[in-house]
C-alpha cells in the first residue's frame, strides 16, 4: 500500500488531539489537564503541518505551503504563553491552599482548609466562600 507521506503524521496528529481532549475533560488533576492541553495543541500543529504537506502535493507550491508553517510557529508561542500562565496560576492556587484539582470537580480532590488564608482585604471573602459553596453544593445546605 502506497501511503502518501503526510498520512501517518496526520493520523498521529488526529490521535493526539483525541487523547488530549480526553485528558482535558476526564482528568481532575490540574497539571494533567495542562499536559493534556499541550498534547492536544501538539496534535493540532502536527495535523496542520501534515495538511500543509498535502497542499504541496496537490497544488503548485514547492515542498510545503509556508503559510501553515508560520501559523504553527505562532501557535506554539501562544501555547507556551498559555501554559506559562496556567502553571503560574496552579502554583499560586496551591500556595493559597488549593489542592490538586479544582473544587467541585471530584469530591476527594479538594482544597485543604486553611482558616487564615482567606481573610483577604476584601470583606466579601467569607461571604464569598459561603455563597460559592452554597451554589456549588446546591441542596446540601
Amino acid at each position, binding site marked *: 500500500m502506497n501511503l502518501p507521506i503526510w498520512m501517518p503524521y496526520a493520523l498521529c496528529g488526529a490521535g493526539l488531539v483525541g487523547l488530549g481532549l480526553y485528558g482535558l475533560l476526564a482528568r481532575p488533576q490540574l497539571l494533567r489537564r495542562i499536559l493534556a492541553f499541550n498534547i492536544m*495543541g501538539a496534535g*493540532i500543529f502536527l495535523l496542520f503541518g501534515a495538511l500543509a504537506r498535502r497542499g504541496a502535493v496537490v497544488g503548485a507550491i514547492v515542498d510545503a505551503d509556508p503559510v501553515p508553517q508560520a501559523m504553527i510557529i*505562532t501557535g506554539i508561542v501562544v501555547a507556551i*504563553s498559555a501554559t506559562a500562565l496556567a502553571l503560574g*496560576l496552579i502554583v*499560586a492556587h496551591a500556595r493559597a491552599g488549593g489542592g490538586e484539582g479544582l473544587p467541585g470537580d471530584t469530591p476527594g480532590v479538594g482544597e485543604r482548609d486553611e482558616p487564615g488564608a482567606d481573610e483577604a482585604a476584601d470583606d466579601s471573602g467569607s461571604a464569598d466562600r459561603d455563597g*460559592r459553596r452554597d451554589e456549588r453544593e446546591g441542596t446540601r445546605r
Partner: protein
Amino acid sequence: MSPVPLVLVLTLPLIGALAAVAVGRHGGRVATAAALATLGAALWLAVRVAAHGTVSVTVGDWTPPLGIRLNADGPAVLFLAVTAVIMAAVVLYARRSITGPKAGVDRGGPMAHTFWALLLLLWGALNVIFVSRDLFNLYVGLELASLAAVALVGIEGRRETLAAALRYLLFALTGSLLFLLGAALLYSAHGTLDLGLLAGQLGRHPSDLLALAAMTAGLAAKTALFPFHVWLPPAHAGAPPAASAVLSALVPKASLYILLRLWFDAAPDGAGTIGPQLLGALGAAAVLHGSLMALRQQRLKLVIAYSTVAQLGYLFLIFPLAAATAAIDPAGADAAWRGTLFQALSHALAKAAMFLCAGLIIEAAGHDRLDRLAGTARALPITLFAFGLAAISLMGLPPSGGFVAKLLLIDAAFERGAAAWALVVLIGGLLAAAYLFRPLAAAWRSPDGDDPDFAPVARRRQALPMALALAALGLGLFSDGPAGLMGGLP
C-alpha cells in the same frame, strides 16, 4: 481613505499596556491617558465609517491570502465604540478602587502594577478581534483576550478566585484549541483563512461541517452557552468589580462576534437545520437556567453574573431565526441580525453599569449580601438609580436598547413563523424582572434596626455607572443611527 484612526484604535491600548508595565506604580495615569486617547480614536473611526463606509487596511500592503486585511465596517465600529466607552468608564472607576485610598489591596502590591497592563491588553485584543477578517488573526486575538481575562479573574490572589480563574482558563483553552482545529481544517480544504475569500465556499468540502462544528463548539464555550457556562458565575463574581464589568460586558461578546462573522459572513449554507436549532435551544435553556439560578443567589455579584449567563442566551436565538434562511426571508433575517447586535451592545453597557454599581455598593457597605443591603437607597441614591436604569435595559422595557432588541427579535420570530422563540424572549424578560427587582427592592427598603454604616462614595464616581446606564437607554432612544450602521444580514 486614511487608516489612521483604525491603526490608532489597535495600537494605543497595546502601547499603553507596555507603558503601564514600564511605569509601575503610576500605571493608573498612563492607563487613563491611553483610555481617553483610544476612546477618541474609536469615536473618530465610528464617525468616519458612518459617513463614508467601511475603512480597510492591508498590513504591509500584502493582500490576502498571504497578507492580513483589517476591516472596520458598521458592526465592527459599533463594537469598537461601545468597548471604548465601557473601558474608559472602567478605567476611571478603577483609578480609585485599585490604587486609591479605598483600595482593598496593598497600594504598591502586584495588583496595582499589573491590573492596568492586563486591562489594556484585553482592550487591544478585543479591538483586534473586531476588525480582523482572517481566522488566524482572530485566533491570536481570542487567545490574548482570554489570557488577559483569566489573569484579571485571578488577580486578587485568593484561593477561590484562583480556582475560578483556572476553571475559566481550562474552558478558554479548550475553546481556543477547537477553534484552531477548525481553522486548520478550513485552510486545508480551501487554501485561505480570509473570511471574505471563504464566503460562499463553505459547505463544499466534506470536512467543512466538522470544522464549523468544532469552531462553533469552541466559541460557544467561550460565550458561556449552556451547558458550557459553569465557569462564568464564579469567575465574574470573584474578579474585582472593575474587571467583572469588562469580563461580563465585553469578553463573551468578542467570541460571539467571531461566531456571527463566521456563520453569516462566510455563510455556511451547509450547516443544515439541526445545528442552528440546537444552538437556539441551548440559548433558550441558558435564558431559563441563568434566570432561575439568579433568583436563588444571596450575593449581588452572583445575581449579576448569572444574569449574564441568561442574557447571553438571547444572542444565540439568531441561529434558528436567520441561519440558512436569508434568501427565503430577508426581512426577518435582517431583524434577527439587528436585534442580536442591539442585544449584545445594550447588554454590554447595562451589565458594565451594573457591575460598577455593585462595586460601589461593596465599597460603601463592605459586602454585597442582599439581606443586609437595606438602606442603600439613602446612602447611594445615584448608584441605585443607575442600577435601576440598567435593569430596565436588561428587562427589555422601553425606552432602552434592550427593548429595541426585544422588538426586533420577536419580529424576526414572527417573520420566521417560529413564535416559540418570541415566547422565549418574553419569558426571559419576565424572569429578568423577577431577579433584578429582587436586589433593587432589597436595597430600597429601609433597615429594620439602626441605620447601617455606609462609607461615603463620591458623587463623581457614582456618575460613571449612571453614564453607562444612560448610554444603554440612549441606544434605544436613538436607535436609528446604530441600526443603519448595523445594516442587514451580511
